[in-house]
């Protein structure tokens, strides 16, 4: 049986070191970097992306690691999603990222897809983005000229558009360790369980002192051209009493900050409604992580 899809001819490069890869992308035109390829191979098949060359960085060991020190967590950009998922220390330190990755694709996809690939593909529905946004993650971008560090908030420019210059590679995700006694969570609403693209995804982080919100961070995906932080809603909740009624009132502000579209997965109106519900639920779950259980009164 013939293939339904035919991938056009490609030049294939497999650099052995990051240095080699950086030199290569500096000289080549019309290329794409490939790590897991779970998005790119489909795009090559459908013709959504047409390139002359692909540069395979999936076997660069230099880009595959999880390092945790006292202050921060560093994840190499080509680290496989399933490895992040199965890392016990990460689940302990930053459970929102683990939860987001668990919701992505399927085991088969997570076994080859990478965290850097998810970010660089820059889908508005990228699920690793909301947890990294609430964690104030920074991204290390490297070229033959040197390195620069960009806050993740500045990384996404639009659907499939990023801060990356043509000769740069995302090499590392740096996550400052959240302070002790912070609760965080990621919730996603999709159309089904496996392989689902987010209709709405929400990550929240909270810290509380004397039953008052000291810090609240909220990030969402699939509701704007890029994943976003919901600063207005965050400030509306800060310094407020930890109370279900107040939370329910304030999370409504989130609709002022998002610009969802209607597509095959959901209407804009539904996304707005669900953004409110998921933000509330995610905050409740994050509070639960620091031992604050809010009773829902029917």
């Amino acid at each position, binding site marked *: 049986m013939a293939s339904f899809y035919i991938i056009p001819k*490609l030049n294939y490069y497999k650099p052995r070191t990051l240095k080699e890869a950086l030199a290569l992308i500096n000289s080549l035109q019309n290329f794409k970097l490939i790590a897991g390829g779970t998005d790119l*191979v489909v795009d090559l098949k459908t013709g959504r992306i047409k390139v002359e060359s*692909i540069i*395979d960085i999936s076997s660069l060991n230099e880009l595959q690691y999880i390092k945790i020190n006292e202050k921060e967590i560093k994840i190499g950009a080509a680290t496989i999603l399933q490895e992040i998922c199965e890392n016990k220390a990460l689940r302990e330190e930053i459970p929102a990222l683990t939860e987001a990755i668990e919701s992505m*694709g399927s085991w*088969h*996809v997570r076994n080859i897809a990478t965290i850097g690939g998810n970010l660089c593909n820059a889908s508005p529905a990228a699920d690793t983005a909301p947890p990294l946004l609430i964690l104030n993650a920074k991204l290390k971008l490297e070229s033959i000229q040197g390195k620069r560090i960009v806050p993740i908030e500045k990384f996404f420019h639009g659907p499939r558009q990023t801060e990356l210059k043509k000769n740069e590679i995302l090499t590392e995700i740096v996550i400052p360790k959240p302070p002790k006694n912070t609760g965080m969570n990621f919730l996603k609403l999709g159309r089904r*369980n496996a392989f689902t693209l987010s209709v709405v995804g929400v990550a929240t982080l909270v810290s509380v002192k004397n039953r008052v919100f000291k810090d609240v961070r909220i990030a969402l995906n699939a509701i704007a051209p890029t994943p976003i932080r919901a600063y207005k809603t965050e400030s509306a909740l800060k310094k407020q009493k930890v109370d279900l009624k107040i939370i329910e009132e304030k999370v409504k502000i989130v609709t002022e900050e998002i610009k969802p579209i209607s597509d095959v997965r959901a209407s804009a109106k539904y996304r707005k409604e669900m953004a409110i519900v998921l933000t509330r639920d995610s905050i409740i779950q994050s509070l639960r992580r620091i031992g604050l259980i809010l009773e829902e009164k029917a």
Partner: protein
Amino acid sequence: MKIKFTLNGEKVEVDTSPNTTLLDMLRRQLGIKSVKRGCERGECGACTVLMDGKPVYSCLILAPKVDGREIITIEYLSKNGELHEIQKAFIEAGAVQCGFCTSAFILTAYSLLNQNPKPSRKEIVKALEGILCRCTGYVKIIDAIDRVIEQKYKVKQ
């Protein structure tokens, strides 16, 4: 371009191209038809193989990526004409109907049980969620894997 890898325990060398998927290389160049061509875009799971022991979709992998790695297809599981215990359990539990997805499920179960010999039913479901079956309704597939675990631990006791 030439690539070398281990296929079902044997070293192979294949002259292939970067725009060939692992699925096409296995089916067309190596004649392994147990790896099924389904959706060709990483949604149905019928093309599952094990790469370095982990289940992956061969339709999403470009052939050169396999260079130096180890690929396992269903042919690897039976030894000396005898079916693997997971294959037997699939027959006993009635987990096979049209058979198109069966290799994918068995390979995924094989990898899961290697990594986690006593998964819970929930863990089994989570591991299998990336493969579609339009015949069985999944219950008997999960039952078959449960049966392998039960039989193993009963024998041991």
